[in-house]
């Protein structure tokens, strides 16, 4: 049996807040689908952040905080808020199929 990878939102499970439950089920096409659902048009700059977030997840097991993104990805805070209005680190994590960044204790 050939497993077809998920390519639409219906194939994937989300939690109540709209975050993907299984980060390993993410493929880039899903980012586009999630972006559409969130009312966002993805540009190269969006993808820079999404790819950065995936790399961080692969390295650390967690979505990066806003501070980490602005310090290390080349995209500053002002631009983050322009690209991902309201809750940029959260939204970037959503698009990248990751759970919420654990910035808050």
């Amino acid at each position, binding site marked *: 049996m050939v497993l077809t990878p998920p390519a639409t939102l219906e194939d994937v499970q989300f939690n109540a807040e709209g975050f993907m439950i299984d980060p390993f089920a993410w493929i880039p096409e899903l980012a586009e689908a999630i972006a559409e659902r969130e009312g966002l048009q993805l540009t190269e700059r969006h993808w820079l952040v999404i790819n950065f977030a995936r790399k961080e997840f692969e390295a650390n097991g967690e979505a990066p*905080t*806003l*501070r*980490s993104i602005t*310090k*290390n990805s080349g995209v500053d*805070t*002002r631009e*983050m*808020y322009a690209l991902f*209005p*309201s*809750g940029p680190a959260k939204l970037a994590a959503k698009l990248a199929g990751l759970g919420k960044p*654990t*910035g*808050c*204790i």
Partner: protein
Amino acid sequence: MKNLLILGGGTAGTMMANQLARKLDANQWHLSVVDKDETHYYQPGFIYVPFGVYRPEDTHRPRRSAISKRVDIVFSGIEAIEPEANRVRLDNGQTLPYDILVIATGCEIRPDQIQGLTDAGWKQNIFDFYTLDGAAALSKLLETWEGGRLVLNVAEMPIKCPVAPLEFVFLADWFFRGRGIRDKVELVYATPLPGAFTKPRASAALGKLMEQKGILTETEFNIGGVDGAKQVIRSWDGREIPYDLLVTIPPNMGVKAIERSGMGDDLNYVPTDKHTLQSKAYKNIWVLGDATNLPTSKAGSVAHFEHEVVVENILRQIKGIPPKPAFDGHANCFIETGFDRGVMIDFNYEVEPLRGTYPMPLAGPFSLLKETRLNHLGKLSFRWIYWNILMPGHHLPVSNQMSMKGKQKLVPSPRAIGAQAQ
């Protein structure tokens, strides 16, 4: 002679020093603490200073007096840790070698991280209360302040003592009522969090108190900068909150020495194993207190629960046995809510604050997620316990690990069960 070096002589460092002084063989181990400050501050006391409940002098003691005579103290700043060479370079020119290192350097507020915070109005109508200077300066102002809009802003998480900003506004409400000018004061709480606190149940309970006390909240407010001339704070998404008096909790970061050592994350906190408290990078380095990157609160109670685990693990390391992954993220806190009342919360990595009693079921004496006078007395009496029981390293009769005893376990409501059955 082997060297066990403790960086930082605050809450965590002092408990470590005093316990290890008793448990290590003095013929085999030389124990020392490094701290840049000869004064040991009781930081939980700072919240009372702006409101005149404590005087500044009530919140500190000489550092030497809290640490066992068997432990050497070197009063100096730290230049950098050289973990590959097992030594620490100090500001005073000394280099201290170690066989085992304990990092207990805490965290500090960084007002420099918020644009405009320390420009126009700093120390005139913009204050912090996380330093004694800031708290004392604020108390002078509040004695005679005639009213206006007081905005308390939490810049970014994590912060040490995450309940302190709430306590500030609760006490402010009480204080201004006491002065008879509450109707002339508008209290605004601006936080980056989606609610009053970080955990859902506690957030709901504390949010209710905010409402009852007439404190306005602006949530998901991520401060981008302060315009001291216009007297507004601005969020990154364009919201503006005007203030007459701004009380700020700036970003909290680990100390610069950690950054200089290349050992910290983006906030200068040291990556630490969640359960053993060993440094993730170096086996002979242990980290506890506010200096870690652990996903639990930065609070004195956490340092207390952690230190018992670290002491045991260091003794194990010396014996050549693997460390015990015994720390469960346990934290608890008394939250002053004004009018001689307080709320207590008790939680860990896995379990959010739940209702119930602490430490004993029914007998308590402290009530969880509920305002009681006993909780307030608990907080006030804590200062004596801190200096006389906690710091000397005497045993506190509470469990290191969080216990579900006395807690109201999470049970789905009958309505929810009924709905599912249909």
